[in-house]
């Protein structure tokens, strides 16, 4: 029977907390596989998925290898632990050319043939069938693995498919991420989900200055990152009143700095409302005017929670590469304006002094504006 073996990553390092991490990982794998039928079982330091529709194998592998905490998977043939069955399964997956070796792990010491001998014998069977093959024990091109389990069954497999690693979502605390619709923020969400965070997103929308398509694009992005975060809720905040107030009452070059401060205040408020402990942004140092050290200082000063900026040291190229890899890039580059591009000042201030920013901002009724914006929140659960 074809089965999927799932190995997990660094959570095996966790001592007393291991159960907590494992439970989260198991729940996450099952959540990610919602809609598929399968049997799930725990075995020593690995999980096994059985009884799935083999026509959907590729999809299942794709889903599981994208669950954070999974180290690798192997598609294996599960056979009775007897020589004939093992040899037959090994032959079925053996390479036909190149170099190879057979590797045996005999967890069940009751199995009569010692590991080394079993490897040699099965290797001999394979060579007999494919005389072009060469054995290379040090650096083989192909490995046929035989894993004899205690339950009288044996897994035979060749490929080890690398998965995303990271920590199971749900083990790293809760955070609110600002999702703009650009390239960077979905990547930031991905990076922090990879460290086990449970993430909810906030999007600032400026209808009628930005279109409904721009909002839909953000929801589409949220759906794409849900593949990694497993659950996703987006709080859409109407930012129109704040933006027009800033535009009317503050100097043009400070528009973005002050906007970012409002966004941070609102994101933090939302985080606190649902027990979140951090805010996530996609800022990358020096990328644009609002991402200089001085601008970040201005934005950061209104936050009391930690602000995680996983992309801070990344080049745009590197961010794009991850965006492409996680499948958000194509959507991110759709040309709908986000709220940062309207009222865009011709020359935004790049090194705002915090004291100056605070003074400029003091003409605004910050508390009322923030509270009004909180009233406009539309909470959208991404299915």
């Amino acid at each position, binding site marked *: 029977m074809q089965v999927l073996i799932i190995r997990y990553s660094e959570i095996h390092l966790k001592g007393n907390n291991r159960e907590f991490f494992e439970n989260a990982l198991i729940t996450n794998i099952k959540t990610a596989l919602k809609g598929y039928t399968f049997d799930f079982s725990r075995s020593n330091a690995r999980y096994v998925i059985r009884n799935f529709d083999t026509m959907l194998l590729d999809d299942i592998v794709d889903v599981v290898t994208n669950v954070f905490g999974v180290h690798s998977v192997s598609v294996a043939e599960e056979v009775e632990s007897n020589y004939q069955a093992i040899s037959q399964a090994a032959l079925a997956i053996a390479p036909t050319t190149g170099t190879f070796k057979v590797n045996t792990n005999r967890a069940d010491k009751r199995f009569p043939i010692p590991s080394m001998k079993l490897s040699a014998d099965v290797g001999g069977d394979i060579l007999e069938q494919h005389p072009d093959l060469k054995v290379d024990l040090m650096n083989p091109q192909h490995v046929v693995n035989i894993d004899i389990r205690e339950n009288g069954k044996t897994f035979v497999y060749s490929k080890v498919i690398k998965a995303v690693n990271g920590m199971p979502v749900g083990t790293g605390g809760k955070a609110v991420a600002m999702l703009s619709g650009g390239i960077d923020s979905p990547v930031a969400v991905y990076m922090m989900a990879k460290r086990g965070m449970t993430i909810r997103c906030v999007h600032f929308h400026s*209808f*009628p*200055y930005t*279109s*409904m398509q721009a909002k839909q694009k953000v929801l589409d992005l949220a759906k794409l990152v849900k593949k990694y975060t497993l659950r996703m809720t987006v709080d859409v905040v109407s930012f129109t009143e704040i933006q*027009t107030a800033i*535009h*009317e009452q503050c100097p043009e070059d400070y528009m973005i700095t002050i906007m970012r401060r409002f966004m941070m205040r609102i994101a933090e408020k939302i985080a606190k409302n649902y027990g979140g402990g951090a805010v996530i942004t996609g800022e990358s140092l020096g990328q644009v005017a609002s991402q200089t050290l001085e601008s970040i200082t201005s934005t950061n000063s209104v936050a009391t929670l930690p602000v995680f900026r996983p992309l801070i040291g990344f080049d745009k190229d590197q961010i794009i590469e991850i965006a492409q890899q996680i499948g958000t890039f194509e959507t991110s580059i759709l*040309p*709908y*304006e986000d709220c940062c*591009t*309207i*009222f865009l000042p011709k020359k935004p201030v790049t090194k705002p002094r915090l004291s100056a920013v605070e003074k400029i901002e003091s003409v605004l009724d910050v508390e009322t504006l923030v509270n009004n914006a909180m009233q406009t929140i539309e909470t959208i659960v991404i299915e």
Partner: protein
Amino acid sequence: MIQYFDNCATTQVDPEVLQILNKYHTETFFNPSARSTFSLKIANDISVAREKLLKLLGGNGELVFTSGGTESDNLGILGCIRKKSGNIVVTASEHSAVFNTVTSLANKGYEIRQTKVNSDGSIDIDDFVAHVDNDTLLACFMHVNNETGAINDIKRINTLVKNINPNTVTFCDGVQAVGKIPVNLNYLGVDLYTFSSHKFHCTKGAGALYIKKGVRVNPQVLGGGQEKGIRSGTEYVGAIVAMAKAVEIANSLLSDNGYIFNNYKNIIRNALADIPNFKENCVENCSPSIMSLAFADIKGEVLLHMLEQYDIVVGTGSACSSKNKQSRIAKAIGLTPNYSEGVIRISFSKFNTLDQVKNLAEKLAFCVKSLRKTMLGK
């Protein structure tokens, strides 16, 4: 209730037309190519509709039914090119369905010649004709500009092109003309003419290519040989019959609507009288159903969304909203950058009422003023 002023984009299906569509979906849904007597009757319905449409549009050539305007454009343009080399003349203001189809031929080695348009979106006829020569395989132009509403003198362009090169195939996109202004295909004289059913209160998913007698069009879709082999695929019978009805209704209202819609335009003009820095992109020789306005210093799309808050739907001058890209047509008609982003298109239909237009005019003036105040005023 939504007050819909984007009838260039698409229209509401007429109830009478819908009845026909329903009948062919639920009662007489037979495949016209099958062998039963019921099917034969359906095939006959298509013939009757074809004859009726040709009569309504004053043409004695062939009418090939397709899935809509874009397919008709592709079929006509790609299907009429026979020589291995030569040039194609096209105006810069064509709809993407024509423009992109023509420019795709550049990859196959054909020379594409783009010609100028006037500031109202109409074709600069002198410039167009100047680009035609002995090697011109195809000349493409449009009857009514979909963004500004400018009506082109198709008969004149066609005659001038044919005078220079009688072998040049003349193609005319009539998507915004049929059902909106009088169309007589024999009078216009063009070789190919296209239209789309959902622009005149019929369903989406159907259209036609008119082919003048003696002009050859090669099929672009192969299959069961329907439509005399020029366009295979089971005919959308309901839409074909409904389309004939829809054109009949539309044509019967043409002169009344021309008068009514021009009155609507005046109401809007009056409401905007005290607003500075805006222009009506096309006034003379403009389709009565289209009014294109450009406002300086505001974005058309923002204005559109503001009107949406009053349940009023208008169109923008361009579907292009990318940040740095100016609309091809806005550029072609020479709008300066501060105007080119502020284009909205109002397009009327028989379902609009005087009250709706008054409301639109009032809200439009209000939105432009408040938007200007927000964007500029400090």
